[in-house]
């Protein structure tokens, strides 16, 4: 569960408001899709949830733990995938996964099972002993996703996770996201792919210019703007048209 209470974040000494008084709750067992135009505040919000940025005001809690006060406990139950897979290029894929496993204290048996399973799914088994430097963009994205799945976290925060993935890998990831939340865990992700959000998410939030302008199930969103049409794309375009 993620609870965001009246969170604001600005840059340039307050001149640019990236996130403005955001209030949002993502329930346990829920896939929450976070949409918005470029520069709307999606990545800033995500970075505040995982502790990469400090909110100027407001609080964020993960499973009831304050991300500021109980940051270490929050980190131990949360994993994050950034919008660009900047990983240790000089390590091999397996060395990177081992590093993440050690940092999160994943027992060897679980580690072995999950690494084996996800390397198979992402077709990375032949490349896992090679330096990440030799990977393509999509392979780097897959290794970062495997690392995020490895600790079996309670909460996953993913910033545009489908970017760079081939259709098969994207399909497997979507299946995993559903299973993850069916086990009562939480998943918060941003995307620009409307079809994915529409089909996969239990609830969707739309942010524009730092403010949450819509939030709810697909049915709720359709009620907000009945003239926009039935698709999420139309609703999104209508709501973010300024």
């Amino acid at each position, binding site marked *: 569960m993620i609870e965001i209470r009246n969170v604001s974040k600005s840059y340039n000494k307050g001149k640019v408001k990236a996130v403005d008084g955001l209030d949002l709750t993502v329930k346990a067992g829920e896939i929450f899709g976070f949409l918005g135009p470029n520069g709307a505040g999606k990545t800033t919000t995500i970075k505040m949830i995982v502790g990469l940025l400090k909110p100027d005001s407001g609080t964020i809690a993960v499973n009831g733990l304050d991300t500021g006060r109980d940051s270490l406990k929050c980190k131990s139950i949360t994993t994050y995938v950034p919008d660009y897979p900047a990983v240790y290029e000089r390590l091999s894929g397996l060395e990177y996964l081992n590093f993440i496993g*050690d940092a999160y204290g994943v027992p060897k048996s679980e580690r072995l099972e999950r690494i084996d399973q996800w390397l198979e799914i992402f077709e990375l088994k032949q490349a896992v002993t090679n330096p990440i430097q030799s990977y393509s963009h999509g392979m780097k994205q897959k290794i970062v996703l495997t690392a995020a799945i490895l600790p079996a976290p309670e909460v996953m925060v993913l910033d545009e996770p489908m970017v760079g993935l081939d259709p098969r890998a994207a399909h497997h990831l979507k299946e995993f996201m559903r299973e993850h939340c069916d086990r009562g865990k939480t998943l918060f992700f941003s995307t620009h792919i409307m079809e994915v959000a529409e089909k996969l998410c239990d609830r969707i939030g739309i942010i524009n210019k730092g403010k949450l302008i819509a939030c709810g199930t697909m049915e709720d969103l359709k009620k907000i703007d009945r003239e926009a049409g039935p698709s999420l794309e139309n609703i999104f375009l209508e709501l973010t048209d300024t």
Partner: protein
Amino acid sequence: MSRLVSLLRAGLRSNFGLSVALHRIFVEKKDRWYIPLFGLAAIGILPTLYGYALLIKSLYGFLQPIGQERVLLTYGILLGQFLVLLFGFYYVISAFYFSRDLEMLIPLPFRPVEVMLSKFAVILVNEYLTMIPLVLPVLITYGILSKARSSYWAGAIAVYALLPVIPLAIVSILVVGMMRLVNLTRKKDVMIVIGSVVMIVAVMALQFTIGRSAGRGMGVEAVAGFFFSPNSLLSRIGAGFPPSVWATRAVADAGTASGWTSLCVFAAVSLLLFWGILITADKLFYRGLIGIGEVSGRKRTLSRKEMSHRVSSGRRPIRAIFEREWRIMNRTPIFLLNGVLTAVILPLIFVVMSKMDSGRGDPAAMLRFLTSSTSVYVILGAAVFMVVCGCLNGTASSAFSREGGQFWMSKVIPVTPREQVLAKFAHSYLIALLGFAAAATVLVLVLHLGAPVCLVAVLLALTAGIALTAAGMIIDLARPLLDWINPMKAIKQNLNVLIAFFADMGILAVVWGITTLLVKAGVGGASLIAAVFAVLAVISALCFRFLLIFADKRYRDIEV
């Protein structure tokens, strides 16, 4: 032409980040403390420059009566060109082959020579800045003392502008050739490191050969010859590296036929070598560059048993982070060259110096002098030598900056800042230990320092190493440089490394001051060593403690 100018401007702007710096200081109102910091640094360096100018003045007073004062200019010019040669090597290999913006530049419709020139311009500006504290005082002091006319100052400006071109062109051509060969091999990173070490040693050998050729045969007849033949010493030095003589005459004889001729020769050779760069660039630059980042991976699926063997059974986070630091440092050629290899090579340079030149005034001779004094000073001198070799390589003061854009992982993993900092400290300290070991080996085997004396010196160096490593890390943690596009920015061109150097010097100066006071108070022998050890232990404990406390705060505050 305008296309090239635009590329040059973009390269200079992105590298020196002037617009970004001005934006951060005046618009975002961040980093404003840079202004007083630079002011303080300028004030701090003034006494050193003043001392340097006084030294030049006294040498001028010594050389002028025998008509050899121009040698000062030659030495200044040689020093500048040697610096360009040494630093240029690091700059060239990093800017030409490891800048991340190259991936963006290669697909653009620029010729290889244009891309290389944009990088060359950046290095040239860096070299002008590097030469300022060493070459400008010589040119200015000489001009004032010789009551030079305006033609001298015009000549000095022209020579300063041309000064880095010859050594930088030589280095560029050598590096481009080396990288072309490296790109043919499979183990590219290993070959880059080996090639780099060979070239650094070659540069050192060249410097010492020039120095030795100047000092060879300094018998009574040669010294007497100076009185009757003005500039004979100049010609002797110039025999090793003629451009230094042309540059000297271009400045000292500016406005005369000799001055014009020398300037023309100096400029012509510079242009010729610059033309050599253009030829090399079009023929070899892209052939060495494209594919240099490629890593040939074997395609082999691990069996279940192999996978089980390779999957770690759970190391403590500190060990995992330490191993990460160790692997990344050793597998990144630029980091390896500047960190580990510098720590090990520095004592070797002293060996080379002591073997190639038994003359006066060189650091090895100073060390020999120091180590022939009483045992207390031998121990202190040896300890300082070890600390210089082990701690001043920039490993600690770039410990956080080296992570660059990957620092997000350190922020999100559930490992306390203290544990992360401890692992990084252990890594930086291990590099320092390698430097101490190399220095101790030189002291024992080359300078024949007794083992008991060496052991006490090692103990002092180990203690001082804690303080200096912690101080370097504190400085880098205070302002980590995480948005670099060129790995050289993280370590060699990182201002934190320079600030840490001054901080380290400050710590050593404090210890030196206390030692002097103790000596004046009549403390000596074992008591003095014990007192120095106690002072170092207290400073180390304070620095280390502060580092851990500071880590908790800074890891929270650093935003990525």
